[in-house]
């Protein structure tokens, strides 16, 4: 079902864990839907110098979290914010149609972590990051399935 690259990121996930003194933490998803992603970032001079994740979810949720951390490591916050779920899917060499929502969660988790960073800096994140849609109901990302 999954590509070799997806399985590689699932079985050897990159950047798993927490950052004790993180500058920003973002959590997205909920237990009821079966997936929660939590991203920790360390920011120096507007650049993401470290990133870690923890994910409760299926194989593709873990794989998308893993590759997304690689894709934003060492990037400026502005660059990281441009990371789209489509880019994550492409980097993984594709995902089954009903797993696309996992890549949306990865994109949102990064945005949530960056928003948290701005908030901690006393900056209103909304004009920069935009509105982050939390997965309030499974049906919100359910449409991605179809």
């Amino acid at each position: 079902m999954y590509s070799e690259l997806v399985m590689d990121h699932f079985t050897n996930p990159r950047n798993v864990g927490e950052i004790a003194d993180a500058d920003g933490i973002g959590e997205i998803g909920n237990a009821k839907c079966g997936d929660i992603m939590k991203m920790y970032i360390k920011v120096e001079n507007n650049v993401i110098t470290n990133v870690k994740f923890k994910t409760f979810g299926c194989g593709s949720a873990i794989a998308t979290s893993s590759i997304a951390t690689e894709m934003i490591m060492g990037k400026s916050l502005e660059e990281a914010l441009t990371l789209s779920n489509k880019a994550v899917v492409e980097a993984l060499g594709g995902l089954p149609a009903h797993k696309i929502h996992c890549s949306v969660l990865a994109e949102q988790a990064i945005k949530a972590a960056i928003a948290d960073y701005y908030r901690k800096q006393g900056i209103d994140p909304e004009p920069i990051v935009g509105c982050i849609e939390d997965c309030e109901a499974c049906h919100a990302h359910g449409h991605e399935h179809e």
Partner: protein
Amino acid sequence: MKRFVYADHSATTQPSEHVVETMLPYLRTYYGNPSSLYAISDQTKSAVEHAREQVARALGAESKEIFFTSGGSESDNWAIKGVAHQLAQKGKKHIVSSVFEHHAVLHTLDALKKEGFEITLLPVHDNGIVRVEELTAALREDTALVTIMFANNEIGTIQPIAEIGAICKQRGILFHTDAVQAVGNIPIDVHEMNIDLLSLSAHKFYGPKGVGALYVRKGVRLPNLIDGGMQEVGRRAGTENVAGIVGLGTAIEDAVSTMQERNQKLILMRDKIIDEALKIERSRLNGDRYQRLPGSANISFEGIEGEALLLWLDQNGICASSGSACTTASLDPSHVLLALGLKHEVAHGSLRLSLGAENTMEDVDHILSVLPRVVDMLRAMSPLWEEIKKQEAL
């Protein structure tokens, strides 16, 4: 070499060598249409009738009460829609079933509901077993049919079929059971248990896919589901799947004759899995501890998601199933697990291990050497588990 352990027998089984051997001549040599008159068709015709006797014997039925179909789903559709349409003419438009039936039953009932039938779905409570007193209370003057599965496909719980059969007989209500998971695995006698209609599928007991049967008690009037030629005495049209039917006959005879010995072994293996898996913290067995299929165990692990668990088991050569939404294209976890009252997040972390004839205690040991490790690893990266532990500490 990596050990391969197939522990998904509730999904399907590997056809036995004996089954394949008996089927091959009907693919290679005896290809005659059983309906034809020439000599080479005599062999196929008598092979089909021999298989019918084998199926009848395994169920305590008569040959003429057995009709071959394409499998469990067709048998369920035929039995339920047939009885419903037959008895609707007498004003009986109420059907009693349970919330955790297979979709072949539930979706058939949905279709009938749209036609104006009334459906009562009984709860199954936290042990995954229908309560007979609740069933009795649900019966009405206009109840046409009771359809309750013999054993559940996901959690393996066995229903009180003989008791339900006795009540239905007493009340003059027809009783169908989807016995797809039970046939060949636990003893069944349609007369002793007062079963009027029973669905079965060959691939669940070491037979081929795409073939099954419906037992219809003598005297039960059942309109056709598939109209056409005069096969199956005009009650189920379509040229017979001769090789499949022969395989079904062999498989059911073999499964029943080896059942006792196999089950002694399976129960020991299943119980070891349950006992050991439940030593993992925050795990639970889904469904009654004892009233279950000999090879079937369904366990939930909090804080992890089932598909990730299955992928890791697969990496270790273990084939299993889960009731997580992520293993299907649907959004919700299994209706069976939710029917037991499990929270969504606990249902997402379920694992079904279903053992069968070829499994050994070494297989069980392999599963048990991998499982705790994989659960630990997934929990270590799970923010949900982190939250559970935080709550625990409070």
